């Protein structure tokens, strides 16, 4: 069926939509030709249609899909940045996994478990989060790709490609990260929000990578060394302030 590609609802949600919509239609019809009755019947019909076709227009607008395939893909975030360094320099820095805590916010430690397997420890408030990754592609100066092992608390697969920028303008770093939030398929409804947050965070991390590679240090507005970390925190708050201009 050609409509298959448009399906963005899980089987459960389709069933729920048909049953709920049917009930609403019944309620509407019983009320006869009153205003509320017509509205209820129409809304019910809409829900039934949504369930039968498996396609929700609102979800489509928001970029949400709760199908099994979408959940397997996860939330995919892409980000590219050009850095004024050779591909080898960028690769070398990226490959120094043990130095990543200075670049990746909230990453506290990276353990080398051997055989291309690494354990990444993140701290999110009082919570610790563990991701175990396995390097599947390691082409010096060109590409790094990894997948998360099942014991990881969230799935975070990644693919980073290094491409020379035109006319000797450094190296283009193209990253694609696939995240699967804990909470399974129902949590996919939060995908647009997660994508936004992840894209912002990935951007900030890229900026810090660029700063280290191009200037040898990470920019900070802190006025004293001990305030360096705490002054990173209010980024979300600042972002909210900046919305005024949009």
């Amino acid at each position, binding site marked *: 069926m050609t409509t298959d590609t448009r399906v963005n609802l899980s089987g459960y949600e389709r069933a729920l939509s048909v049953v709920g919509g049917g009930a609403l239609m019944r309620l509407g019809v019983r009320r006869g030709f009153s205003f509320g009755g017509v509205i209820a019947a129409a809304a019910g019909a809409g829900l039934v249609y949504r369930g039968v076709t498996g396609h929700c227009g609102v979800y489509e607008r928001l970029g949400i899909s709760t199908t099994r395939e979408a959940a397997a893909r996860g939330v995919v975030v892409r980000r590219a940045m050009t850095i*004024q360094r050779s591909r080898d320099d960028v690769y070398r820095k990226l490959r120094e996994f043990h130095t990543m805590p200075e670049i990746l916010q909230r990453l506290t430690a990276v353990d080398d478990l051997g055989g291309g397997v690494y354990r990444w420890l993140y701290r999110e408030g009082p919570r610790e989060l563990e991701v175990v990754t396995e390097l599947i592609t390691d082409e010096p100066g060109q590409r790094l790709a990894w997948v998360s092992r099942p014991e990881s608390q969230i799935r975070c697969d990644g693919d980073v490609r290094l491409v020379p920028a035109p006319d000797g303008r450094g190296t283009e770093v193209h990253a694609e990260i696939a995240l699967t939030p804990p909470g399974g398929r129902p949590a996919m409804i939060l995908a647009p929000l997660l994508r936004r947050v992840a894209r912002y965070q990935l951007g900030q991390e890229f*900026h810090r990578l660029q700063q280290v590679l191009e200037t*040898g*240090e990470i920019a*900070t507005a802190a006025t004293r060394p001990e305030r360096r970390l705490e002054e*990173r925190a209010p980024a979300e708050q600042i972002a909210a302030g*900046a919305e005024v201009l949009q």
Partner: protein
Amino acid sequence: MIANRWYGVHDVRVEHVPDPEIVNPRDAIVRVTSTAICGSDLHLYDGYIPTMHEGDILGHEFMGEVVEVGGAVTNLSRGDRVVVPFNIACGACFFCAREMFSLCENSNPNAGITEKVYGHACAGLFGYSHMMGGYAGGQAEYVRVPFADVGCLKIESDLEDDKVLFLTDIFPTGYMAAENCGIQAGDVIAVFGCGPVGQFAIRSAFLLGAERVIAIDDVAERLAMAEDGGAEALPLSNGYNVIEELTELTGGRGPDAAIDAVGMEAHGTGLSDVYDRAKQALRLQTDRPTALRYAIQACRKGGTVSAPGVYGGVIDKMPMGAAFGKGLTFKMGQTHVHKYLRPLLRRVEQGEIDPSFVITHRLPLQQAAEGYRMFHAKQDGCVKVVLHA
């Protein structure tokens, strides 16, 4: 130390805060000897720049003495007398390498926020909101200066502070505005706004070979200062058609280039000003572009509109049809101060210009709040306030 801190609309306070320390290897700590209040500080004072937090230290025009340097700074040492550009630049990125220092890729720790609003981030600035990096500013006794090896310009002559302080911002800003006009022999330049940047734009236009400069403002003493600089004064008053007047003064051609040295808080006249103020108050537009509209309307066909005045967000009723129809060129942006430091210092040393002409008031740093109040109200002929720490 004491520092001037922002607390909200028309609320700045001089308070005690901890001294800054070296954080990164390319930092320096500068003990401030002179600092100034900039016209763009008034946009913060009026609350039009978002992402300000209570307690933020203001100020981006400052100079002083190096008291400490980080391990990677080899071209400065304790005791050096330096001026510090208002924007922070790494000196190594794509933009710095092309002398576009105000577009530095690596000096804004909050680049992500600016990217959300502007698409791409600009350089970090001292004391100018968290969107611009959240750096503590120079209206203080001490400042942490990041990338000090690139930013600090040593003053080795005995020129007093008053003559070199404005290399940090308004002199290069006025100069770049004039340079952006691409001045050719015989050119007539219109300068909208005779605040400090406008004053330097006027003098710079002459340094760059302008035939005539026409200065437009509604404050008498500012026009008088513009006339001292060689400009012809065109007073802006209610019911007066500035566009018509400019056309007449230029033999019907219009000025070859028009400089908007006003920016986002222009004072207009008549109904369109009421409309702009209402929309700004309702946040339907963030900036009031009266001077920019005038500049577009007045500029001759094929001419250039150069905008050193600061804009922050969105504007309304931009006469794009006039700009397109007349084939205008637009040049704008934060000043690439680093690029102009040495050439302009040379002009000061050679006596081509004495930038201290613009100073009308001097106060101790402790009285910063009074300085802001006076400058904002344009009281007592106030054009430029210098604070001594």
